[in-house]
Structures are given as structure tokens and as C-alpha cells.
């Protein structure tokens, strides 16, 4: 939901998604091309600043969205920093600090950080509906897009249904003890399964009523300043790649 909020309420909401995706792609290229950790870190910082200062995504929200990925990255880096050895004498396992790996860890860590910043730039400034429309223009197979559209829509329908069920159960002491909570959760899962089936049928009937007999086709949104956005994205993205390339 945090990602959704930002995607709809940022300054660049109306900018062309193609331009934003291109800039993010340049960010990825720059991240992977960065020769030293300092440059990769600088690119990550640059992308984060563009997202927060440029698109107007609140810094606190940015960090909250990034936190799970950062935690995962930190754990991955730690696992690279230590190596497990099987001791020949005692036959036991021992953990060893691998100082020689420090440079490589810094390299991988900062590159991942820059790639994460590029991805966050895209998802925090572009609603998924715009991204799906962009993928449609890029000729991604229809069946994949239809699945994405339906899954995305259903995500909200079911989160609402789940919230309602949860509230109704809590109001009747459904979660008063751990045993009751387990039972209530089971009932909710069973109920939602039935609802999925019913709603899938309902959607099928609604589609039939609107004369659908095959693929789901939708209109493509238009953007007033798409060309200007693309030029700006190309300049910005080019600058990122140039920085990365200049120090290699």
C-alpha cells in the first residue's frame, strides 16, 4: 500500500511511464557498469535523491519501502563475509571471517543498492496500471498482461474482503485466544476460497454481458508531454551511465 500511495501521489505521476522506465533502465545499466563501490554508491544516492527530491516521494516512506530489501541485502552481504568450514580434525563446522572478500562484498552490495534504487524510482513514481499499459505497448504476450490485470485488481478486492472478515470475526471474539485465532483463520481461508470461486464466476458473467468472447482488450492512456519526458529521461539516464563509464 505504501508503494501504491507514492505511485499515485508523486509529482511525476503524469510523466510518461516509458520515460520513467527508460531512466530506471539506465540506472540499472549504470549500477552494473560501476567499476568501484564508491561510484555504485554515488549512483544509488543519485537515484534516491531524484526519487525523493525530484518526484517528491517523502523520505520516510522511501526508507520504509526500502527497509525489507535493505535488510535482505545486509543479510546477503553478511553471509558472503563469513565462510563455513568443515574442520578435518574435529569434524565440526566452523565459521570464518573472510577479509579477502571485503572488496567483492562492497562491490556487489553497492551495485545491488544502486539497482534497488533504480527499481524503487520506477515503482514509487509509476502506478502499476501505467506499467501494464507500457508492457502492452512493448508487445508483452496478452495472456500475461490479462493475468497481471486480474491479479492486481483482485488483490484489492480480496484484501478488502479479508479485512471485512477479520473485523467481523474480531467483533465476535474470533481472536480472543490463540486457539480461537487459529480456528478463525481457518474459517477465513475457507470462506475466501469460496469467494474466489464465486467472484471468478461473477467476473466471467460480467465479461459475457459486455460481449466479451476472447481476449481482454483495454484502451491505452496517452501522455501530453511524452516526447519531452523521454528526452529528459535520456539525458538523466545518459548522465548516470556516463558517470559510471568515466571512472572505469
Amino acid at each position, binding site marked *: 500500500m505504501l508503494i501504491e500511495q507514492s505511485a499515485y501521489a508523486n509529482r511525476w505521476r503524469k510523466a510518461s511511464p516509458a520515460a520513467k522506465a527508460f531512466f530506471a533502465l539506465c540506472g540499472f545499466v549504470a549500477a552494473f557498469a560501476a567499476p568501484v563501490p564508491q561510484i555504485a554508491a554515488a549512483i544509488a544516492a543519485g537515484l534516491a535523491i531524484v526519487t525523493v527530491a525530484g518526484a517528491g516521494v517523502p523520505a520516510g516512506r522511501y526508507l520504509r519501502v526500502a527497509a525489507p530489501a535493505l535488510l535482505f541485502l545486509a543479510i546477503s552481504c553478511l553471509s558472503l563475509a563469513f565462510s563455513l568450514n568443515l574442520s578435518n580434525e574435529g569434524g565440526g563446522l566452523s565459521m570464518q571471517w573472510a577479509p579477502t572478500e571485503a572488496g567483492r562484498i562492497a562491490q556487489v552490495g553497492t551495485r545491488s543498492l544502486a539497482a534497488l534504487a533504480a527499481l524503487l524510482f520506477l515503482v514509487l513514481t509509476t502506478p502499476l496500471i501505467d506499467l501494464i499499459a507500457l508492457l502492452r505497448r512493448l508487445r508483452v504476450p496478452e495472456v500475461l498482461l490479462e493475468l497481471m*490485470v486480474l491479479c492486481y*485488481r483482485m488483490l484489492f478486492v480480496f484484501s*478488502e474482503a479479508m479485512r471485512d472478515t477479520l473485523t467481523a470475526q474480531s467483533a465476535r471474539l474470533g481472536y480472543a485466544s490463540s486457539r480461537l485465532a487459529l480456528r478463525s483463520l481457518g474459517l477465513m481461508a475457507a470462506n475466501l476460497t469460496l469467494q474466489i470461486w464465486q467472484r471468478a464466476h*461473477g467476473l466471467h458473467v460480467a465479461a459475457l454481458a459486455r460481449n466479451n468472447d476472447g481476449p481482454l482488450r483495454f*484502451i491505452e492512456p496517452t501522455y501530453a508531454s511524452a516526447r519531452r519526458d523521454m528526452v529528459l529521461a535520456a539525458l538523466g539516464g545518459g548522465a548516470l551511465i556516463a558517470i559510471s563509464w568515466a571512472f572505469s
Partner: protein
Amino acid sequence: MNLLELEDVRFRYPDGSVGLNGCSLSITRGSRNALLGVNGSGKTTLFQHTNGLLRPQSGQLRYAGVPIDYSRSGLRELRSRVGIVFQNPDRQLFSASVQEDVSFGPFNLGLGKEIVRERVASALQAVGMEKFADKAVHNLSFGQKKRVCIAGVLAMEPELLVLDEPMAGLDVIAQHEFMAVLDDLHARGITLLLATHDIDFAYAWADRIHLMSAGQCAASIDARSLADGGEILTDVGLPLPAVLELERKLRSCGLFSREVSPRSHRELLSLLDESNTFEKEVS
């Protein structure tokens, strides 16, 4: 001229429950029709018959005087003329963006991109949702979702618009706004058929009232004729419109003597105001 006719239509669901049990009714072109009935009386089943989502097990449906053709092309033709708006918007809206969802029906009619774009814009304007074109469906209120549902059907430019309990779940303001949308659609020449539990709304709005009971159309009456009778409503377990009860009481007390019968609370109040002013002027 009758646009849609049902003649002794019967339909039973696979679980054995009766949907329609010899239902006959007709909808006149350009009219406003309210379908009244208690829960389970067969309103939704009837609606699903109107554009061929369900096929009668016996009996016949005619559209513009011609029996409905249930072939693929026949259904395509029928569904482009009869649009259904379902009761729960979340079961009808399946695209994440407003304009994408509205464009779904016109694309299914095989229209080109430019015409679809025009139709989407005009349908959204007709329901007062043009500012929400690029909003996500899940960020809309219940009433707004209902409007988008109507726009999705309007964009197909139907002759007959069928709405399943459109007022359910709407607050009073949204109901008034919705009535304005319905009046506008009627002014465009669209025939309207809607299901409702609200006898006061049906009396105020409809030209014809169809009463459903146990899978049958118990009666089809001219809404104005209720002023002279109304027993037919009590026969199917429905109350009289509140404004009609009040009017009768006022007449019996000698407080209201106008020939015309008000159809809504607001109309009654303005007639009473007029009467008071007239009496003051005379005295």
C-alpha cells in the same frame, strides 16, 4: 412499441431452485421501468435473461418483436443493444484503471481505438466521472464505482439499460446524484429497467412498475394508476408509497384537495405550499 417481451418464461437453476416460473412482461421503448419484488423473487434471474446470459428452459423472449437468437452472432447483437449493470460493482469492474474498464465493452464490439476513446470520454462525462478517467478503480468510493459500471455499459451505446438495484449501498446525496444521471440517460432516449426494493423511489421515478413475486411478474401497472388503488401492492406484500398514504390522509382530513397526485415528498410539499398561498390570497 414493445422493446422487450417475456412470454411465459421458465427457468430453474441446477440446484433445483426456481428462478422464473412462467414470467411474462413487456418493456415499452423509451419508458422508465421499475421492477419491485422481495429478495429471491426472481429479479436478477430475469435480468440475466434480458441479454442472453441465461436462456429460458421454456417460454420465449422477444427483442423488438423478434425472438432472441441464441447463436454466437445473435447474442453478440443482443448484448450490444441491452446493457446490464450488476448490483456489486466489484464483481463487474475488472480492470484496474477507470478508462481501461470503460473501454472494455466498446473493444468487444470490435470498434477502432479512436472511436473507443471518444466513447469512453463521452460515457464518463455522462455519469460525471470524466475527472477520474486515469484513476485506479480501487481508490474510488462505492458510488463512484457504480457510476463507472454504468459508464462501462453506456460506452456500448445500448438501447435498453438494465440496472440491478442501483441505489443499494448509496447514501442520500449519491442517490440524488444517481437519479439525475438516470434522468439524463432517459432524456437521451435510453429505455431503463431497474430493480429496486424502494417503493417510494419507484413511485416517484418510474412510468411503469412491474411487481415480481415467486418467479412471476404478478402485475405490470402504470405508476400513476397507483394513486387510485394500490391494493395490488399489498397483495404481493409491499407497502404503499409513503407519499400516497400521506396524501390520502390529508385528503380525508380535508387538508389537500388538488386533482393532481404528488409522486414524491418534494412534490407534495410544493403542492401544499401552492395551496396555502392560494387560500391566503382568497381570504
